[in-house]
């Protein structure tokens, strides 16, 4: 341990020499590792967004109960009171026509000009009901059976679709994770083997001088670690760029989709990518070293 500390400078210098001896291949390995990790980061990002989206939508399990044609606004107020008494309902509001129009204006933003084409307010008054997700099913049935309620709009279908997308992304994520792991390990172990070949005279000399395997191998582990860590940093930088640009684009294009907070998502992905790159770097180097042990 003491020796390892004394030799930190030596190990770093050796790692630099190993990289320098095969400069171009190492640069390409760094770039390809970065791109592979970037693919992983994108899948994790998609996975994370859809997961958070499902969570947010589930938290906001909400139905809109539209009144039938014969129900006036006083009766609607009575219905609100009735719905409040149903199990699982935690908030009920009557949204009149004017508020419904205002909401749509807000959602459409600059595109709200299209609403001016209507001579009359095209939106109906409705009752907005927020329900605990676990009790959505029975509450829905009870609200639907009330006299004066025409039809109900709920987000279960959307939720189901997003959930299936999340499931798909999750499976794709596992596949990408396996592909990233294997390909990164193969790249790194190949680079380590090449490094060992280029430094075979030095390794042979150190062996004859009695250097332990850990002393000889440590600079190679460092090389693997530096290559993948560099790749991880590159992937993180690319994904941060992509998220920052993509968020602005998506929220401009589809303002009604509630996107999760960007900072939280980015820091989570960066931590994951850096951790994965460290683990893969060490494993790849050890794999490379072990495959050349007896040569």
């Amino acid at each position: 341990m003491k020796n390892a500390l004394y030799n930190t400078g030596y190990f770093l210098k050796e790692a630099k020499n190993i990289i320098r001896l095969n400069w171009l291949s190492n640069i390409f390995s760094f770039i390809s590792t970065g791109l592979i990790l970037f693919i992983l980061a994108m899948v994790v990002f998609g996975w994370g967004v859809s997961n958070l989206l499902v969570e947010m939508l589930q938290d906001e399990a909400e139905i809109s109960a539209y009144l039938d044609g014969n129900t006036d606004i006083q009766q609607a107020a009575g219905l609100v009171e009735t719905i409040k008494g149903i199990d699982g309902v935690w908030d009920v509001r009557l949204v009149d026509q004017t508020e419904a129009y205002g909401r749509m204006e807000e959602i459409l933003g600059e595109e709200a000009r299209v609403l001016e084409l209507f001579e009359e307010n095209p939106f109906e008054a409705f009752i907005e009901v927020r329900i605990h997700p676990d009790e959505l099913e029975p509450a829905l049935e009870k609200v639907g059976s009330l006299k004066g309620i025409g039809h109900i709009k709920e987000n279960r279908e959307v939720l189901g679709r997003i959930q299936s997308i999340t499931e798909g992304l999750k499976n794709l994520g596992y596949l990408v994770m396996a592909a990233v792991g294997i390909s990164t390990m193969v790249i790194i172990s190949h680079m380590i083997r090449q490094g060992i070949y280029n430094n075979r005279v030095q390794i042979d000399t150190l062996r004859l001088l009695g250097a332990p395997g850990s002393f000889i191998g440590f600079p190679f582990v460092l090389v693997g670690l530096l290559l993948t860590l560099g790749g991880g940093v590159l992937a993180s930088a690319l994904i941060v760029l992509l998220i920052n640009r993509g968020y602005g684009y998506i929220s401009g294009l589809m303002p009604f989709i509630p996107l999760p907070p960007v900072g939280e998502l980015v820091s989570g992905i960066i931590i994951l990518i850096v951790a994965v790159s460290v683990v893969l770097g060490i494993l790849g180097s050890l794999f490379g070293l072990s495959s050349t042990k007896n040569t």
Partner: protein
Amino acid sequence: MIEAKGVSLRYPDGTLALKGIDLEVKPGELVYITGPSGSGKTSLLKVIMAMEYPTSGSLKVLWQPVTKGQTGRINQMRRRIGPVFQEFKLIRGRTVLENVMMGMRFLEVSPRQMKENAGSAIARLGLAHKTHSSVENLSWGEAQRAAIARAVARKPVIILADEPTGNLDHANALNILELLTSFRDKNTAVIITTHATHLIEKQNNATFIRMDGGNITIERRGKANEECLV
């Protein structure tokens, strides 16, 4: 410190390099291994360094048996030997100081001690002015002295030099032999292989191992060398 009993070495291609060798080297002994090319000198050094393993017989180096598969023990043993290889095996792209220090980095030596040992070995071998020169810029003789500095800076108990006089003229060869033998003391044995017997025939305080076709004859000369055997 070295004890060989009936050691034979046969290479995978069938060549018999050593034939049932019996040998004993004690602390402080100066040993010359002589013989023509292909007589088994380098094979004997390889066996002592555990670069090859005896195909029969038993060998102990530093009182430890040399057997295949004992990597940890072999490494321990090698750390107490100062080898000077025929082709020097200096690491290219590194300075003389870095090469000398490389042989000590994994020993239980503090960085200060390591630098001191390296500095004094380099100075003793007359290379102080080349301390920070890259080994590619050294002449043949300087490279050889750098390799010796790396071997002796480790304070080994056995110094093994393989053909250190090869490719040198008479005067320089004598200088190198003198330099190597100067590291011999009561604890440190020096073993040198050479085919230049004319350089050492007047030595009267050493052990001579003559090798021929894998067989050996041993002659011990001088009181001091006999005393170290006691």
